[in-house]
């Protein structure tokens, strides 16, 4: 049974991907994709039922993995040579040499280490990948069809596209389930390659350039990862993640040497999670088709980065290094939230906000208390759902209105009411109580209590977050039309939107259950303490209390009442907006009578606070500071 499940979640996608690569028939592809998605989702749920496990596949696979490693590295090297990119060339050469050393000279007893191991953290990740990821893949069907129509392609590139998408799902599952760090390294590089190929999918000048940047940054992370495990092998003598975790506390006490490989692994995680100063690859990756952004660059692949950081958190708990990770996370959280506030490009806002939330997760990992780790895991979960939802919405909107600029989404409700509503639900779940994201943020802030520097940055960051979400939600409502006609949409696009929106609400509602069954065990396992009691399903700790159900009940009732009141408003009660007495509606467009007797249609713009949040100006400083913190972190770790 277990074999089957691991096979289904990890290997099956590889096989399906191969099929999709050669398949050119639209409808068959659709069926296969939907079926795969269903199977993956079911398998992940079944796996969840099974709970924690350890598994070693046949030794043959070890050889395959090693082979795969080299194949990927040579592909990267080839790309580097083709693009004449020195960094990629040198980094891949370094990795090849490192891998040869590791594989043939250091690690003698292949197969002694179980390849897979899962605890609740891994299972949460598998759930996200298999359910949210699959939904995005399904969404991709409808999206790509229209996408290619827009581009007027003569020969469809969809086989290639879905090859990488589905391949990626398998790789991602493999990554989070891997116990052997060499295996994890293989999947890690797999995702890098998928990301590179998918960013460059549209094959425009800018796409190629951004893909290249993503590649070198991720290869840098890969190099750090590889040398991290080389050092780890040297210091600890094993590559079994489980063993390292089990022996975590003794390392933490010993300190010193373990922290250098930890730094390298955490550094690798940071590059993957596009933390400053590497945030540019993720914002650049937004040129890719939206399902790619949703799948790889917000809900799953970048989560691999924070996964490894959270995963290793017990190992470096209580060290100087951990504090710096927290500080780094908090700083990037604030900095990228500011960058997001300065953007009008919807996908860029989502990208920066993703980085910001990942940074918050990293900060939680750095704070490294049971409550903080709880917050981190819940953030991973809720963020994946809500952010995927947001990306899919922006994708659907972009295809309809031809722009991803939030300024162009003004009054979107009049054009596509359903998607607008779903997007607003997405935004609400991102920033308001009683939804999961906010609850996790509440846990994060309360767990930071006592560390004032962290607190300041978290406080400022969450203020900025409200700023950019709120105005986005608000402007979509800005329409004079009382009733709008629902838009037509492909079912493969609409269904994922609705399911994700439903998930965002329902999972938030059951957050106590989620906590009890998924989060508390893993936290208890590594930290020997559960952070929250759950009286009446409310999160209670000596530090604070979060009333989940009363809030759901009261705010829900209030909202229902408000909705009822709003329904009472009739069209006759609608008036033109205030325009200093010059209001004038021409062709249904509100506006005013301006100079020279001309009608001026309304035009409003958000404030992007160029002065405070200007991207070019701010990025420079952020990169410098982040780099400085990283350097201190390394030397702090080395000490």
């Amino acid at each position, binding site marked *: 049974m277990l074999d089957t499940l691991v096979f289904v979640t990890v290997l099956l996608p590889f096989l399906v991907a191969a099929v999709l690569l050669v398949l050119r028939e639209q409808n068959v592809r659709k069926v296969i994709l939907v079926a795969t998605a269903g199977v993956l989702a079911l398998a992940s749920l079944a796996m969840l039922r099974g709970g924690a496990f350890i598994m070693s596949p046949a030794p043959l696979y070890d050889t395959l993995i090693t082979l795969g490693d080299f194949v990927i590295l040579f592909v990267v090297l080839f790309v580097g040579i083709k693009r004449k990119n020195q960094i990629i060339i040198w980094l891949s050469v370094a990795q090849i040499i490192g891998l040869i050393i590791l594989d043939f000279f250091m690690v003698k007893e292949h197969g002694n280490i179980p390849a897979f191991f899962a605890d609740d953290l891994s299972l949460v990740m598998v759930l996200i990948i298999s359910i949210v990821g699959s939904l995005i893949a399904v969404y991709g069907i409808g999206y790509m069809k229209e996408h290619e129509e827009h581009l007027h392609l003569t020969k469809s590139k969809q086989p290639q596209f879905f090859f990488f998408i589905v391949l990626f799902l398998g790789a991602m599952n493999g990554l989070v389930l891997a116990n052997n760090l060499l295996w994890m390294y293989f999947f890690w590089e797999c995702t890098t390659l998928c990301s590179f190929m998918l960013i460059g999918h549209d094959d425009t000048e800018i796409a190629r350039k951004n893909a290249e940047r993503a590649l070198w940054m991720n290869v840098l992370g890969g190099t750090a990862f590889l040398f991290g495990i080389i050092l780890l092998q040297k210091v600890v003598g094993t590559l079994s993640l489980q063993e390292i975790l089990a022996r975590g506390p003794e390392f933490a006490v010993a300190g010193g040497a373990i922290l250098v490989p930890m730094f390298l692994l955490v550094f690798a995680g940071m590059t993957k999670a596009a933390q400053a100063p590497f945030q540019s690859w993720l914002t650049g990756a937004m040129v890719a088709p939206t399902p790619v952004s949703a799948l790889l660059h917000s809900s799953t692949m970048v989560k691999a980065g924070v996964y490894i950081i959270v995963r290793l958190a017990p190992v470096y708990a209580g060290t100087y290094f951990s504090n710096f990770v927290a500080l780094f996370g908090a700083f990037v959280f604030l900095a990228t939230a500011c960058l997001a506030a300065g953007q009008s490009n919807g996908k860029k806002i989502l990208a920066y906000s993703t980085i910001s939330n990942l940074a918050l997760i990293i900060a939680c990992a750095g704070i490294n208390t049971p409550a903080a780790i709880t917050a981190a895991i819940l953030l991973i979960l809720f963020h994946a759902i809500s952010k995927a939802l947001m990306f899919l919405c922006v994708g659907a909107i972009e295809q309809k209105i031809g722009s991803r600029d939030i300024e162009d989404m003004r009054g979107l409700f009049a054009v596509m009411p359903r998607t607008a509503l779903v997007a607003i639900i997405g935004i609400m779940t991102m920033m308001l109580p009683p939804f999961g994201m906010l609850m996790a943020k509440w846990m994060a802030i309360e767990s930071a209590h006592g560390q004032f520097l962290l607190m300041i940055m978290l406080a400022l960051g969450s203020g900025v977050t409200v700023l950019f979400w709120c105005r986005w939600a608000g402007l979509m409502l800005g329409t004079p039309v009382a009733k709008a006609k629902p838009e037509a949409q492909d079912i493969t696009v609409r269904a994922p939107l609705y399911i994700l929106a439903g998930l965002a609400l329902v999972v938030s509602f059951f957050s106590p259950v989620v906590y009890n069954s998924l989060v508390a065990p893993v936290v208890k396992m590594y930290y020997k303490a559960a952070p929250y009691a759950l009286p009446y399903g409310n999160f209670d700790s000596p530090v604070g209390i979060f009333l989940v159900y009363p809030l759901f009940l009261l705010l829900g009732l209030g909202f229902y009442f408000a909705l009822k009141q709003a329904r009472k408003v009739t069209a006759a009660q609608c*008036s*033109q907006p*205030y325009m200093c*007495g*010059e*209001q004038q509606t021409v062709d249904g467009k509100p506006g005013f*009578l301006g100079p020279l007797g001309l009608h001026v249609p309304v035009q409003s713009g958000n404030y992007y606070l160029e002065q405070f949040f200007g991207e070019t100006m701010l990025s420079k400083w952020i990169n410098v500071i982040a780099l400085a913190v990283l350097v201190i972190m390394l030397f702090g770790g080395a000490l």
Partner: protein
Amino acid sequence: MLGNLINQGRIKSPWVVHFDCGSCNGCDIEVLACLTPIYDIERFGILNIGNPKHADVLLVTGTVNHRNKHVLKNIYDQMPGPKAVIAIGACGCSGGVFREAYNVVGGVDKVIPVDVYVPGCPARPEAIIDGVVAALEKVKTLLGMTA
């Protein structure tokens, strides 16, 4: 019961919006003077709210001309009912000394219904207070309230 309370509120809280409809400033300044310590119309709950959507009483000063007549109408239309209009000064009442000028349409009542006329050139602040009080009396009778 609630209806009575609301009527009470209507009498006690007439928020005004002032629109200068081509006045010479004399009346405008007197309207503003009403807000100041000497006259202090906030005693009656009157606020100069500046936004027709919040206002109950429209104070109009000045003659209506061809350019501002639609503005006046627009502002009046944007006031939610119940509402009252007070024309202030000779110009607002009838066009005053400018009735015969080529760009003047006439008094405020050429465009919107006027409830109270406040004469004067310019109308004294006391007269403006009288005007608002008269408008409230009118509202009272309309609401069937006994004084």
